[in-house]
């Protein structure tokens, strides 16, 4: 464990001066500096001040990540969102959103983003990762990490009240940590905060909590913004619908599962708006469940009955992007459709067969067909350009001949018949049919078994060959840990759908999570990417952009990589 030199500095964290050096030498990008600095406790304001005061000298700086501009999707020049609201934001109005309204009880157990979006209006998070992947304190005033990022001190903002009058204190924060870490509740936070055990949480005083990690982890603030990490009061008894108590800008008025959820503005919200009065600007939020049928949702948006469609598929985007009074905000993400092969089953246990299938992926064509070209090409490794530690690689070409040779070597001279299973939703059927057609030239005869979504999610970890959608996660290492590693006894973690465990890969991954040094971390990532490309168990053709489609009357909204509805400062202007 390489110890970073302690430096007497008024800096919040000893590594920050070195960070500044690296930036001045142009060896790390503006975004990498900002992200690491803020993670280490430097305030966003002082970090941006520093950036403005000096220019990086372009020595052997790493190539700018192609998607520097967070909002500009390369292919489609959509209208740049209005960063600054024109004039004073108006108050009042109702916003209607078409989305599924699923059953929900304990926020810690959330596994659908739709449920999180609805109750994120009532409860809030300790931190806030913005559209540019920069994490700011939210319910916390600030945080501090020790030198080797194994101890984190969280300073809670004073004076924040829950909507039932209780004040937010350290006890509430600790109660929430215990809920996340309690195996009986089954929260996905347990996997994320694996470096923290419940007894190592210390209540310093009423407004300060200290965490003693079992292993160093730089991404703690980002993990605290993971969607199940909503802060509920310590009196919470497990059913958010019966006890909608939170510090958020809205109050729950009505929640009818599979039909609608209605939220009304909270008068005494702690955060102030541009006009000095408490946020939020909008009076009422209505979430409507119009069922699986996309056509019904499109029709509703088009006739103005709803203002926004949650997590629109490529087809919806294609259908509504040219409608007159509809605004489309786009953002590149790490969301993708993984063509995954179970390495513990015939024929995928033979890497040559896996390589052959990867060669059969006609990436650009698949992107055009499945997502109308709205995304960036990928190279079969689960680390995306938007990830801070992304190490760029060149895109493997579509090579059916190579695939046919590999199959012959692997003992299938006249081709191979396999069954591909996926869900009848979003882009999977289109991708499956595109893969079937392009793989045919490469010697694969793929039979498609496209089943209703509910059925696919019963068998997604069992089928030998399938296409599974993986949502965006801010850090590259997060997904790799979730899907490509084994637990302590060595058998694959629950979400490792391909049962692919590689000793060298797991070691390097742990290494990467520990390294603070951005440069060193990027090298490790490069090695991880090489391993996955060379003998990995997945074909990843492209990273999709994600859209936020709303009626033009909804102001100050942007596309969020994981489709979060950030609406505390959105407002409605009916005249425009």
């Amino acid at each position, binding site marked *: 464990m390489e110890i970073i030199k302690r430096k007497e500095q008024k800096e919040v964290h000893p590594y920050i001066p070195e960070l500044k050096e690296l930036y001045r030498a142009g060896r790390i990008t503006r975004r990498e500096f900002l992200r690491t600095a803020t993670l280490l406790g430097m305030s966003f304001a002082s970090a941006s001040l520093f950036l403005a005061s000096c220019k990086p000298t372009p020595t052997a700086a790493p190539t700018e990540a192609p998607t520097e501009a967070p909002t500009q999707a390369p292919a489609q020049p959509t209208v740049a969102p209005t960063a600054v609201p024109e004039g004073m934001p108006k108050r009042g109005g109702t916003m*209607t959103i*078409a989305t599924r309204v699923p*059953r929900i*009880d*304990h926020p810690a*157990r959330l*596994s*659908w983003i739709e449920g999180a979006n609805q109750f994120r209006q009532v409860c809030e998070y300790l931190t806030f990762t913005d559209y540019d992947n920069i994490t700011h304190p939210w319910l916390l005033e600030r945080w501090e990490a020790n030198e080797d990022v194994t101890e984190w001190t969280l300073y809670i903002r004073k004076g924040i009240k829950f909507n039932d009058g209780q004040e937010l204190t350290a006890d509430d924060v600790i109660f929430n940590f215990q*809920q996340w870490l*309690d195996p*009986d*509740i*089954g929260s*996905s936070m347990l996997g994320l905060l694996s470096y923290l055990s419940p007894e190592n949480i210390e209540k310093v005083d009423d407004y300060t909590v200290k965490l003693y990690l079992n292993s160093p982890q730089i991404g703690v603030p980002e993990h605290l913004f993971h969607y199940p990490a909503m802060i509920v009061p310590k009196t919470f*008894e*497990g*059913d958010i*619908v*019966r*006890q909608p108590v939170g510090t958020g800008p809205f109050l729950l008025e009505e929640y*009818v*599962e*599979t*039909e*609608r959820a209605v939220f009304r503005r909270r008068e005494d919200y702690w955060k102030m708006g541009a006009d000095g009065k408490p946020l939020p600007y909008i009076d009422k939020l*209505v979430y*409507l469940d*119009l*069922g*699986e*049928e996309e*056509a*019904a*949702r*499109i*029709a*509703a948006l*088009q*006739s103005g*009955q*709803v203002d926004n469609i949650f997590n629109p598929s490529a087809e919806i985007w294609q259908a509504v992007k040219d409608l007159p009074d509809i605004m489309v905000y786009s953002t590149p993400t790490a969301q993708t459709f993984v063509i995954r092969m179970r390495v513990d089953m015939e024929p995928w246990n033979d890497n040559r067969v896996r390589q052959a299938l990867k060669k059969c992926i006609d990436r650009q064509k698949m992107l055009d067909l499945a997502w109308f070209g709205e995304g960036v090409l990928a190279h079969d490794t689960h680390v995306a350009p938007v990830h801070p530690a992304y190490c760029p690689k060149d895109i493997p070409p579509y090579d059916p001949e190579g695939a046919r040779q590999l199959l012959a070597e692997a003992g299938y001279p006249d081709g191979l018949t396999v069954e591909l299973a996926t869900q009848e939703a979003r882009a999977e059927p289109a991708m499956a049919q595109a893969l079937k057609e392009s793989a045919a030239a490469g010697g694969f005869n793929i039979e498609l078994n496209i089943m*209703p*979504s*509910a*059925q696919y*999610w*019963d*068998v*997604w970890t069992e089928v030998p060959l399938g296409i599974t959608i993986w949502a965006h996660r801010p850090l590259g290492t997060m997904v790799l840990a979730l899907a490509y590693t084994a637990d302590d006894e060595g058998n694959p973690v*629950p*979400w490792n759908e391909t049962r692919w465990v590689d000793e060298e890969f797991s070691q390097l991954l742990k290494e990467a999570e520990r390294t603070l040094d951005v440069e060193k971390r990027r090298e490790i990532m490069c090695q991880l990417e090489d391993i996955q490309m060379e003998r990995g168990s997945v074909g990843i053709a492209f990273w999709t952009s994600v859209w936020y489609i709303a009626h033009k009357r909804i102001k100050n909204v942007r596309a969020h990589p994981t489709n979060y509805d950030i609406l505390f400062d959105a407002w409605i202007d009916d005249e425009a």
Partner: protein
Amino acid sequence: MARYILRRLGFMLLTMFLVSIAVFLISEVAPGDVARHILGQFATPEQVELLRDQMGLDEPLYVRYFDWLIGNDWRLRRLVGMPLKQVLIPGRADAEWYAIAPDGTMLQWKMKQEGLVEIRVTPDGERTEVLFDGWLVDENGEEYFWGVDTAGHVVLWKKGEAGREVGPASAGRAMIEASGVEYYPIRRGLLRGDPGISFRTNRPVGPTLARRLRNSLSLAGIAFVVIMPIALVLGVLAGLREGSPLDRTISLFSLITTSVPEFASGVFLILVFAFWLKVLPGAAVFPDDTAPLQNPKLLILPVLTLTLVEVGYVARMTRASMAEVMNAPYIRTAFLKGLPYWRIVFKHALRNALIAPITVIMLHVNWLVGGIVVVESVFGYPGLGMYLLDSALFKDINAIEAGAMVMVALAVGSQLVADIIYTFLNPRIRYT
């Protein structure tokens, strides 16, 4: 006549019983696990297993069936030693179970930080919580207690060695400390008015189903009221003027409309009226329950889609029946009696001509309510058809059974009404 109706009602119950068993068996066989659907694809196998246990899905099939049919509160009472009572929560479509102490106070237990807490609600509604100390001791010395939790389960709590109560602190619907030993969800059973809890909404099935049924019935009702008169009139006109240009145009129109599948015509109507003309809403969006009444424009397109398909079918049938009656001997007698043409048509012909169509129309009630799932899905209309489809995909057995029972009742009910109308219209048939 009464005997006939009684026999048919008996048959209706028999059919519903058979269908309910068929639905139970088939959904048992069909793939898919409802617990996993609830917990989402990222739940761990242990969590799924625990939830299955808490929903009572691990019990044998016949036990679950009878629980669904006649309930298990009378059986579970013996475990708790106190009568169980279901109390509706005012203002919310939900209900809670309580154990009733001899002096009338309602009791519930829940696991909290400090241990098992007893909630007491006195008859006048005053609610207190106190630490529970009435543990019983079983043969090998372990302390245990059978009680009712706040999530409508009869639960077995046990005091573990660590001195800390182990068991589901299942406050509300959640399972905070889900390490309970045994769970039985309490139900009164369909026959006693409690169709059970829907796994999809975690709420009683009744209210949701009622709303969906009302939506479907209002759509079907309006469509029925719009379709049938038009179709009958068209049919009669065509039948009267058999072979005339009027007859040919009506026949062609009705032929074309019945040949276009309703999902195609529905989509076109949206394109024309909602998209190009922007006159009508393209989807049936219900911001709240009273939507269909406040904003009837929502119903226009779905009703129009239904009408297009149905009018043609009924008109063709009425035309055939009318034409047949007009050639009947007793109509010839009416002519020979020198009666005016319209009197012959209305007084003599119509009555007999409508016998066949009306009985078939009633059979369409069944299709209208359940079968229009396609129209519901095109317009996102929250009807009974979609409810059944979504529940079946989710394997929400209580919702499927309740929905199926309603549909069967409607189907057989409309068949019975059709027969009764048949007897009134046709005096020759006297059912014994």
